[in-house]
């Protein structure tokens, strides 16, 4: 029962997230895409509320957090679910998406895709925050927990704390079942924003397989990719307000999110040549993450963000590139890359696709840059490359969808 309540607590966030339906460009989307955007909006809203309450010392209760969420539901004014365009794709692509989501449900239900990081830090952080009713700096800074990455951005633990607030305790299975929900939401978001069911199906296939081989159940990666796909698709297809919100969530989900935001803003500037907007779009993300780093620094929690000050091992460049490229094969002969690059190679005019292509290249290079900061990076690459390379792959799917408009 607790597990069901926990998941219901996350799903109910769709209702306050419907406030994003007030955006004219979101109103044009088909219903599944609007529901996905609403889930993204709801997650962003509840984590922002919990984060803010942490600083104004308001307790986290169902009442104190529920009131602003209900206010969002009222303000959304969402009545007619049928508004918006018709779904963009044939039945085949929808069936394909559902098959991959169903297999992912099977994978998590039989404990085949659980990420170790759920057990070692995402879960512990979420439930400690829940019991403390705040971002527990004493817990994060405790010397014995030095491997828990004390300064990792808090969106996922805050989301887990919200689910725990609803269910009265943390649900390990709930955290796992979040993955197929987010996979479906990611697919629907791209399907609506790009108006392309075929590439939404391909994205689902790549992510579902990538999640399985990379073992990300319960970790932050499905959340990160959900917001990244929305952000890049929104930027590519001119949903700028939505992109700004999604980018803020990206920066607040994982350390590498900051780099993603910077590259996306750069790509927007290069491809759209609008200086003011290329500053405004990443501004919420910059404020949020700046605030978090200042908070982490003030509480002596800096860990991963301090890596940037470490020395770079250029002598390992060949080994790092070789090992990363080996992991990038995903043990299926680079099929995910071929499936996204071949349609691009068939085009002469990339048009809108330049933006996601630049982000894909940038995030791939930044991954190599990260790895070069480790004295012996082999283990690190083996443990993480298949997960982190899903970001450039997802960007390439968006690029392919953009060229096929």
């Amino acid at each position, binding site marked *: 029962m607790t597990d069901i309540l926990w998941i219901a607590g996350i799903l109910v966030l769709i209702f306050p997230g419907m406030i994003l339906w007030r955006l004219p460009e979101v109103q044009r989307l088909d219903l599944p895409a609007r529901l996905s955007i609403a889930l993204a909006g709801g997650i962003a809203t509840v984590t922002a509320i919990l984060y803010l309450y942490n600083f104004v010392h308001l307790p986290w209760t169902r009442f104190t957090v529920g009131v602003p969420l209900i206010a969002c539901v009222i303000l959304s004014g969402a009545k007619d679910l049928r508004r918006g365009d018709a779904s963009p794709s044939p039945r085949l692509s929808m069936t*394909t998406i559902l*098959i*991959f989501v169903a*297999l992912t449900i*099977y*994978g998590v239900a*039989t*404990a*085949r*895709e*659980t990420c*170790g990081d*759920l*057990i*070692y*830090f995402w*879960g*512990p952080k979420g*439930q*400690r925050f829940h*019991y403390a009713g705040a971002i527990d700096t004493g817990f994060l800074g405790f010397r*014995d*927990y030095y*491997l*828990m990455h004390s300064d990792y951005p808090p969106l996922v633990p805050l989301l887990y704390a919200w689910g725990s607030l609803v269910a009265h305790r*943390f649900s*390990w*299975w709930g955290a*796992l079942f979040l993955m197929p929900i987010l996979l479906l939401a990611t697919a629907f978001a791209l399907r609506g924003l790009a108006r*392309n069911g*075929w*590439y939404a*199906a*391909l994205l689902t*296939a*790549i992510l*579902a*397989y990538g999640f*399985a*081989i990379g*073992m990300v*159940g*319960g970790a932050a990666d499905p959340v990160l990719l959900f917001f990244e796909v929305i952000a890049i698709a929104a930027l590519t297809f001119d949903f700028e307000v939505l992109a700004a919100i999604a980018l803020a969530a990206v920066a607040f989900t994982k350390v590498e999110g900051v780099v993603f935001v910077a590259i996306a803003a750069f790509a927007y500037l290069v491809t759209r040549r609008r200086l003011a907007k290329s500053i405004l779009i990443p501004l919420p993300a910059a404020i949020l993450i700046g605030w978090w780093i200042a908070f982490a620094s003030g509480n002596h929690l800096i860990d991963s963000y301090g890596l940037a000050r470490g020395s770079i091992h250029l002598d390992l460049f060949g080994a790092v590139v070789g090992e990363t490229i080996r992991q990038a094969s*995903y*043990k*299926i002969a680079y*099929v*995910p890359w*071929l*499936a996204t690059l*071949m*349609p691009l190679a*068939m085009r002469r005019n990339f048009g809108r696709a330049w933006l996601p292509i630049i982000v894909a290249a940038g995030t791939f290079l930044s991954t190599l840059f990260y790895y070069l900061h480790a004295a012996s990076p082999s283990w690190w690459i083996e443990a993480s490359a298949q997960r982190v390379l899903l970001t450039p792959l997802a960007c390439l799917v968006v690029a*392919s969808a953009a060229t*096929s408009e």
Partner: protein
Amino acid sequence: MSRGEKAIVAGATLILLIAFIARLYTRGGPYFQRPLTIVDHVGPGKHETRDALLLLPKVRPLLPRGARVTCFEPGNRDTMPDFFAAVGQLPRQIVVSPNGDLPEYVIAIRQPFTNTSYRVIAQFPEGRLYRRD
């Protein structure tokens, strides 16, 4: 979309589907039984935290709130997996590293803990709970 593009996407999706099913299959059976822990089938072998994840919920009600406790497998040099599993499974207690001063309570996974200052207060198939005399 051109016919060629559709063929590429469809072909890749089919390959990914087969690879995905194979990946799930090779993580071992049973395939349609409810798992006891969230790590039961992450690989064909037993996960390093499985016994801890089975034992800790049984031990939890026996520990006072706020008690200092540690968790490890005696004789195993890699103490981190069981220790961090305990941090997540005992949110009402203070779980400290087994590599420092030992606390009042010790949860020993699989192997007995032979420190004479401690006595067994509960025993389960996956391990034992000890308390300092």
